């Protein structure tokens, strides 16, 4: 397939870098300031080197990407909330041109799911978005394989930053602020960690899961979300006395989305440590399935994007 990549952050760059290995060709990569476009395939290595050196990703106009002859638009621009722009419009333009879209951007799928599906119905192209939930972990394709109606609930840990903080607090008996500072030093937490620790990032992923289970109907505003900022070290100590620990757990069903700190058995499947993610997919006829792995990171997330590309039909 010929890929046009929008967004040249960790994920966009990793998709470009790994595309060849997966048998695909990159014909365009763009960020908000520039684009590198070549219908015969761009020189990925040189483009990424240039971008890595602080220069724009290319001298072309990002607008021209849509005029390029591509099969799949990879939407890897930063997630935005509310109207989910510009990710939504990018997706719309590609579908209207009868192309496929693979999203790594959570915004459109969480906030405007029904609109995306309506656009897809009118298009020869399809949308896929495995990378929006759990990075490298095949969550959505597992649900797709089980068929969504046979899945009753999805629960789990889908934010590595919050999980890292809770794990360290429990292990070292430290308080939230202390461990947050350490996580920032290690580069696990962003300078502004709000999105991760207040539960928003996990909530977006569980909203997407609820949309898949119920075929739409949910946005971030429908989720009941509590973060981990108010959990003191003493709460984790008390939980441990009882063989339990606290994790930021999300739950998605056809009835709703809930994210918050919950008590789970210390040695149970959901008590993953560090930045590891896990989901438990509860099925009607086959009990629970667990998928665990790396839920973030450029190359990890790019593998989910490229797996999606591999599942698309030829146009």
């Amino acid at each position, binding site marked *: 397939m010929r890929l046009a990549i929008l967004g040249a952050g960790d994920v966009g760059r990793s998709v470009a870098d790994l595309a060849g290995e997966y048998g695909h060709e990159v014909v365009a990569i763009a960020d908000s300031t520039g684009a590198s476009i070549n219908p015969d395939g761009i020189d990925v290595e040189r483009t990424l080197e240039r971008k890595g050196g602080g220069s724009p990703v290319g001298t072309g106009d990002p607008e021209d990407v849509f005029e390029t002859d591509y099969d799949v638009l990879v939407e890897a621009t930063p997630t935005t909330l509310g109207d989910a722009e510009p990710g939504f419009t990018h997706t719309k333009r590609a579908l209207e041109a009868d192309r496929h879209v693979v999203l790594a951007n959570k915004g459109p799928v969480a906030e405007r799911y029904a609109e995306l599906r309506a656009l897809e119905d009118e298009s020869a192209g399809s949308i896929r978005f495995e990378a929006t939930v759990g990075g490298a972990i095949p969550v959505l394709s597992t649900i797709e394989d089980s068929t969504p109606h046979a899945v009753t*609930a999805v*629960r789990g840990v889908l934010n590595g930053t919050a999980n890292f903080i809770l794990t360290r607090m429990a292990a070292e008996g430290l308080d939230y602020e202390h461990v947050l500072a350490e996580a920032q030093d290690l580069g696990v937490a962003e300078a502004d960690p709000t999105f991760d620790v207040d539960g928003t990032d996990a909530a977006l992923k569980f909203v997407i899961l609820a949309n898949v289970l119920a075929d739409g109907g949910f946005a971030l505003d429908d989720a009941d979300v509590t973060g981990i900022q108010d959990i003191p*070290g003493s709460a984790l*100590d008390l*939980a441990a006395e009882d063989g339990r620990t*606290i994790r930021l757990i999300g739950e998605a069903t056809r009835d709703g989305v809930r994210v918050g700190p*919950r008590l789970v*058995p210390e040695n149970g499947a959901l008590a993953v440590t560090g930045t590891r993610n896990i989901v438990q997919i509860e099925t009607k006829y086959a009990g629970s399935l667990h998928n665990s792995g790396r839920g973030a990171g450029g190359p990890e997330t790019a593998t989910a994007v490229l797996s999606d590309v591999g599942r698309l039909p030829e146009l």
Partner: protein
Amino acid sequence: MGNTAGAGDESDADAETDGGVRAYTVRLELVDEPGELLRALKPISDNGGNLLSIHHERGNITPRGHIPVEVDMECPPDRFDDIVEGLREAGVNVIQAGAERYGEEISVVLVGHLVENDLSETLSRIEDEASAVVLDLSLAAPEGTGGVASARVRLAIDSGRTTEALASIRSIGSEKDLAVVEPLLGGDA
């Protein structure tokens, strides 16, 4: 054979259970001191219970250093509540009483200005509004009684009523400005 012969047997069987006794299991938690077991069994016999077996799990110590004891007994159904009441009045920690009545046991962790916000009132409201029995409480107040504290509360709840009970506890929490860390139910979490 089936039409007539059964009648007499049935009434015999009824005579056994009707107004008779049922078997119950209570799980207790005892302090490891001489005389404790005897003290715990007295309310059972005082209230007309008949001991069937006692499983004293020495060596299997609960997280707080107590010894779990499982007592099988029989008694008329209307006496069972009196027995459980009698045990609690004698200061015995009843972890589980009967199979139906306190079918589920959960723990929640409360976080906030627990002491300033009248912890004992919070606990009585949980018992009343969530139809729960507080079995156990651990409090950690590293900042002193005026600061943010955590409490782990172990509750016995009627079977099948856990979701409702947790909803009540959530609403008490939000009224009293306490964070409630609930257990994750469902699946095999």
